[in-house]
């Protein structure tokens, strides 16, 4: 039975009656409409701040950020977008909360009462839109908390204001969309569906596979730019994306208000505002899908394919550490385990060791190379395939560290230290390198089966980093998780060292496949006095490095029994690994 529920258009009601009182009654002291909007917005904002939905969204968003950042070194040009993924979750909650707030009167049978108030539907909707400011604290809190965590973990680079503001605008735009939905569909499911659409729209952002993915409300996982050694200027296009989100928020606001106005003038104003918003969205979209400049891609490919051209190298204890410019703070964390291993060595290999950062970059990638000539794309692809990060052959004198994979703290950092120490020890005992690792078929790691140098390398790594014994023991596996390799048609029980799957040192699996026998003998060696072991190793270091010298010989020299290793069932026709023979 309600008609003209919203009353007159937003702009014309107050002014028309400002001094008009035909009945000659004293005009009640009333606030101008904008003050009503602000007062109502303040209340709605306070509801939003205290909304359980929004609080839950904040917690869930925080969890998303926490999980997606993980414990890896926090690169701001990657983390900023991951924070945005958390904002997307908050945005979903704000969308649902805003829809609930706007549809509140209709759901609760208060339409008639509302229709009797001087505050029109337009005033109320405008207040709901302004009240979306109440979602800002949750968004800003997420940014602040993530910033604190990132800084605590040793942030690399600097945050992009455009990316962070984009996340905030995403939340506001989602709220405006919820308001628009709520003005038409008061049922709570409408907000849930809206939130779901928002989630799916971003969750499917990998589908286009080209620059269009920047146009989705938020994209943070489908591009390779987060794993680069620095931000690629202007990409992902954060600033135009923020403008797009602002345009979307404005457009949603216009859609929300459109249902509440009746006057031609107000409708015209809204139509104009909507047109401007659409134009802004289109313009921002066009800017986002522009091809990355050729010069920038050339430089990127160059930095990836030839890291030395961009890296700064430091030599410490005759080891070269080559890091991209922003990663100098990693040096102490890398030096510690390497130096510890070096200090234990009776002698070093003739060829010096280089520890180098590398980048995994997969080309062709239409997101990065769209709009460029096939000839250029082929050239970049060919160059990138030769990059150290993409190479399947590890030099005998280099340890590669993929950018973005080095942990910031905690147990994973300890694992990474162990991995680096083990790689250093493998370099020292000549287990590192192409001729060893690739002597097997299909690029599988070689197996130092019954080679004394393996337990020596493991012993060195254990003494250098002192990992928990239980964690080392876990690497033997149980039941179906027992690591194994097949050599000469015999199943060899393997040993997964701590952090083996972490990708801290590259290429993953490019080093030798460590064996259970090697670990168990190394473990037994750690129970002997260090001086005794060092003395025996130093007495005939060349012998222990020879791949023909067996575990049994080493055990006999140390005066300890050979640890027993349970046998594994005969393998089916699986891939064969080769012996390490360098």
């Amino acid at each position, binding site marked *: 039975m309600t008609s003209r529920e919203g009353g007159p258009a937003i702009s014309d009601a107050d002014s028309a009656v400002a001094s*008009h009182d035909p009945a000659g009654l004293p005009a009640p002291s009333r606030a101008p409409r904008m003050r009503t909007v602000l007062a109502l917005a303040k209340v709605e904002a306070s509801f939003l701040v205290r909304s359980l939905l929004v609080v839950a969204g904040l917690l869930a968003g925080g969890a998303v950020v926490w999980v997606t950042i993980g414990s890896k070194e926090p690169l701001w040009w990657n983390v900023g977008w991951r924070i945005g993924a958390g904002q997307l979750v908050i945005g979903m909650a704000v969308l649902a909360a805003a829809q609930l707030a706007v549809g509140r009167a209709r759901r609760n049978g208060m339409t008639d009462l509302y229709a009797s108030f001087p505050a029109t539907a337009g005033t109320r909707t405008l207040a709901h839109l302004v009240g979306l400011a109440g979602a800002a604290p949750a968004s800003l809190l997420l940014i602040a908390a993530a910033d604190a965590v990132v800084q605590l973990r040793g942030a690399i680079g600097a945050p992009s204001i455009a990316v962070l503001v984009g996340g905030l605008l995403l939340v506001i735009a989602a709220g405006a969309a919820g308001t628009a939905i709520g003005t038409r569909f008061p049922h709570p499911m409408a907000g849930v569906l809206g939130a779901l659409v928002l989630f799916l729209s971003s969750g499917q952002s990998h589908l286009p596979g080209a620059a269009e993915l920047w146009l989705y409300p938020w994209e943070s996982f489908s591009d390779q730019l987060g794993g680069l050694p620095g931000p690629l200027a202007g990409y992902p296009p954060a600033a135009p994306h923020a403008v797009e989100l602002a345009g979307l928020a404005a457009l949603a606001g216009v859609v929300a208000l459109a249902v509440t106005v009746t006057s031609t003038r107000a409708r015209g104003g809204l139509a104009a505002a909507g047109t401007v918003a659409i134009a802004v969205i289109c313009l921002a979209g066009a800017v986002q899908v522009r091809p990355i400049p050729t010069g920038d891609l050339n430089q990127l490919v160059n930095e990836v394919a030839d890291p030395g051209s961009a890296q700064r190298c430091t030599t410490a204890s005759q080891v070269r550490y080559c890091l991209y410019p922003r990663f100098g703070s990693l040096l102490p964390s890398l030096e510690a385990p390497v130096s510890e291993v070096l200090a234990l060595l009776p002698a070093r290999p003739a060829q010096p060791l280089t520890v180098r950062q590398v980048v995994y970059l997969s080309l062709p990638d239409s997101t990065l190379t769209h709009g460029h000539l096939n000839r250029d794309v082929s050239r970049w692809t060919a160059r990138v395939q030769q990059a150290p990060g993409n190479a399947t052959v590890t030099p005998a004198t280099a340890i590669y560290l993929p950018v973005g994979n080095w942990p910031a703290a905690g147990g994973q950092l300890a694992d990474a230290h162990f991995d680096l120490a083990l790689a250093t020890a493998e370099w020292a005992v000549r287990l590192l390198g192409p001729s060893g690792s690739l002597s097997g078929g299909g690029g599988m790691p070689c197996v130092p089966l019954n080679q004394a140098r393996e337990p020596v390398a493991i012993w060195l790594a254990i003494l250098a980093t002192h990992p928990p014994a239980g964690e080392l023991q876990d690497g033997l596996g149980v039941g179906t998780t027992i690591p194994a390799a097949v050599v000469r048609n015999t199943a060899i029980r393997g040993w997964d060292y701590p952090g083996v799957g972490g990708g801290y040192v590259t290429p993953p699996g490019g080093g030798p496949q460590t064996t259970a026998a090697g670990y168990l003998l190394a473990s037994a060696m750690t129970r002997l006095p260090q001086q005794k072991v060092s003395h025996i190793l130093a007495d005939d270091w060349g012998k222990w490095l020879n791949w023909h010298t067996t575990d049994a010989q080493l055990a006999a020299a140390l005066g300890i029994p050979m640890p027993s290793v349970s046998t594994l069932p005969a393998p089916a026709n699986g891939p064969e690994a080769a012996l390490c023979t360098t």
Partner: protein
Amino acid sequence: MTLNVCSAAVRADGLSRRYGSTLALDEVDLTLERGITGLLGPNGAGKTTLLSILATVSEPDAGRVSAFGLDPRDGAERVEIRRRLGYLPQELGYYRHFTVAGFLDYVAILKEITDRRRRAEEVARVLAAVGLERRARTRIRALSGGLRQRLGIAQALLGQPDLLILDEPTAGLDPEQRLRFRELLSGLPGDPVIVLSTHQADDIAAICPKVVVLLQGRVRFAGTPAELAATATARVWAGDQRNAGAHLSWRGGDNRWRHIGDQPPPGAEPVTPTVEDGYLLLSQAASEQ
């Protein structure tokens, strides 16, 4: 039928409203002055439709309304009427998770009372007026039906409206609350125009200087309660036995039968008619037409 009053504040001329094939209002003319006017009528008589039109919530299919000289068809004047209006719809929903004071504060903003201090004073005033001051912090979902009805009345009182439209305000109130409500309406400052619909003829008799009876979408009576009661003069009797010839016959609390009809039943004695008797007689007459 037009209520002849001086200085009419609210006027309805020829109001008609149809819902599908049902004629809810049929050329209703009405003039309301300051003071309390009771609107009596059975369910489906058109009371709620009439009140919603007076409250500018809905529009008539034909006819026009003016309040304080303002025409609700004009958007700006409609807003001005709403600024002077307090309205309690027949079926009012509530925000169950709001507190009583929070709800009133929210409604006060919708009534454009934006100054925080004034709003707080106004909320406190209406809470005290309906006796809910101790429930200010209570969630609405924890209120009984009667307390919610008092809250509905309280929201209508916000802003000291010049025009107070209450659709069955005493529904759900216990006798003590009804008495308090009568007291409340009688003591409202500023001499507002008050229209209340009710089924309770005794409420009308107790507090309304004027009464309008709406039957089948038409105004059948407008006058004072005494005049309404007087329409049943010499038509009401009390006796010890049921009278099948009477229009209406029912047993009262004193265990005696009360009869409304054209002829006195045997052995019955005439009694002074009440407002309810007058209303029932009108209803009976209308239903026979």
